[in-house]
């Protein structure tokens, strides 16, 4: 027994000593003097040095979108750094095109604030705010997708366009020691600014999805920020083709709800891919939109229907179904949302049908 206590004691002493040493070193060695960041040549903020630019800006309530929470694995948090960032790091290059590298685009989660910086960010990011919200409803759309309705408390309203996304904060719990952010498309109509709906698919051991599916309850408080993103309906008169799978329904649903409300007359087809009937959801709502918008058709397709499903609709991979229905897409434009694999395959099919690449817009779930 005494041997065990001695071992635990020595181990704790060594670990504590090393931790203290590191804390002391951090206090003495790391340069935390204040630095100024000039944004778009109009605004100057002062932040403590030594931290990543993404976190420093967030502390000053300027939110740069980042789906991975600052680990350099999503490539979303791009900002243009005109001065003071130092050389490009190897962790950034995979996410930046040659053009971006030349024009000073950097990943803000990888750039540390070591000296005064001059940066340029899109003006619309200034409209991004942090919101406190309350879970109003939580319901199962399928066996693995939940619909979460968040009622905004402070500020009480959000202005967004259909197709944009927000980031929700997951507080520390069993799967994470620190708060992390994950991005989800808003699935509700922008005409309801006091609440937003999200569709969140469960991923085993996913930090955020496990939190939402297993821990979140009606009445819980949630912190979120947004809106972000440029995915959304372009104001052309072209025929529309929407393609989505699983929780990729969310931004398309927001667009369709808005189209139904505004009685948008553009010809429009929505191909929704699922494995079996149990993976289909909001079908009745889509059928209702079909009655409200005469030019809209909802085409759900099952790739592996159960015999019990008694499915009489379209079957096969979504790419096959699109291929069968679309004969000439030269004058159409497409909006895709889902996994990178699905999107790449769909782009291939649409191009074969004559659709120019610049008319294809997508939101990839990385």
């Amino acid at each position, binding site marked *: 027994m005494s*041997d065990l206590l*001695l*071992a635990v004691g*020595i*181990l704790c002493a*060594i*670990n504590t000593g*090393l*931790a203290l*040493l*590191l804390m002391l*070193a*951090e206090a003495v*060695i*790391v*340069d935390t003097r204040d630095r100024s960041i000039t944004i778009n040549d109009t605004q100057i903020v002062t932040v403590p040095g030594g931290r990543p630019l993404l976190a420093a800006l967030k502390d000053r309530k300027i939110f740069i979108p980042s789906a991975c929470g600052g680990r350099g694995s999503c490539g979303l948090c791009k900002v243009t750094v005109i001065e003071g960032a*130092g*050389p490009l*790091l*190897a*962790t950034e290059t995979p996410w930046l095109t040659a053009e971006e590298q030349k024009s000073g685009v950097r990943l803000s989660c990888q750039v*540390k604030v*070591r000296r005064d910086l001059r940066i340029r960010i899109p003006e619309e990011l200034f409209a991004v705010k942090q919101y406190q919200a309350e879970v109003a409803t939580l319901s199962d759309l399928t066996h693995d997708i939940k619909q979460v309705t968040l009622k905004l408390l402070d500020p009480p309203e959000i202005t967004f366009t259909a197709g944009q996304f927000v980031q929700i904060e997951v507080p520390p719990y069993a799967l994470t020691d620190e708060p992390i952010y994950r991005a989800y498309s808003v699935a509700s109509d922008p005409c309801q600014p006091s609440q937003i709906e999200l569709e969140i698919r469960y991923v085993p051991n996913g930090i955020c999805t496990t939190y939402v599916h297993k821990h979140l309850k009606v009445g819980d408080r949630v912190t979120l920020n947004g809106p972000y993103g440029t995915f959304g309906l372009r104001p052309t008169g072209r025929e529309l083709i929407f393609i989505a799978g699983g929780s990729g329904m969310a931004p398309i649903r927001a667009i369709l709800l808005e189209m139904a409300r505004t009685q948008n007359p553009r010809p429009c087809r929505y191909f929704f891919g699922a494995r079996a009937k149990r993976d289909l959801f909001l079908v009745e709502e889509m059928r209702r939109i079909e009655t409200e918008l005469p030019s809209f058709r909802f085409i759900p397709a099952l790739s592996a229907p159960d015999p019990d499903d008694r499915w009489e609709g379209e079957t096969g991979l979504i790419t096959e179904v699109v291929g069968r229905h679309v004969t000439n897409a030269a004058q159409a434009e497409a909006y895709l949302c889902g996994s990178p694999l699905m999107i790449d395959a769909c782009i291939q099919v649409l191009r074969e049908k004559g659709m120019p690449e610049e008319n294809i817009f997508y939101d990839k779930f990385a």
Partner: protein
Amino acid sequence: MEQLGFFTILFSAVFTNNILLTNYLGMCSFLGCSREIKTALGLGTAVSFVTAATSILNWLVYAYILVPFDLVYLRFIVFIVVIAAFVQLVEMIIERVSEPLYNALGIFLPLITVNCAILGVSLFMVIRNYTFWQAFGYGLGAGLGWALAILAMAGIRQRLAQRSRIPRGLEGPGIALIIAGTMALAFMGFNGMVSLN
């Protein structure tokens, strides 16, 4: 082991008992970061420095804490913690002192924390009952040996990429493993000069 001096052990750790080519430790970063000489040089330098320093630190912890308290069975966990803390400390110092060096080495330092060659050096050192100077010589030599191996590999791979037509099935890790095996055979030529076992 008392008869082997600092330089003999250092020479032996670089050539006759190269930790990578005879013990096959540190293979993941060896294969992953050996496409370019510049990267290999950065990682090799960082590994050499960390093995030399952590071999001393772990020798001191082992000799003055674990042995007196009869806790040598804790060496695995203690050595790992010391290595992780040291790497973080080095990262902070390099970032403050030299930004170009930090930019060159910074991304490799976290890789080094999980490099099994570093832990291997500390464990071999206690298994072989090295004295302080022998441990330092072995740590430095093992790091330099690892750096030599990855540099040689990077040189070969860089040249292969420029001039050779490699069969498709062997591209990447396949050809790298074959080269590593050939290099290990070449290093066997040093066998018998000095033995550390």
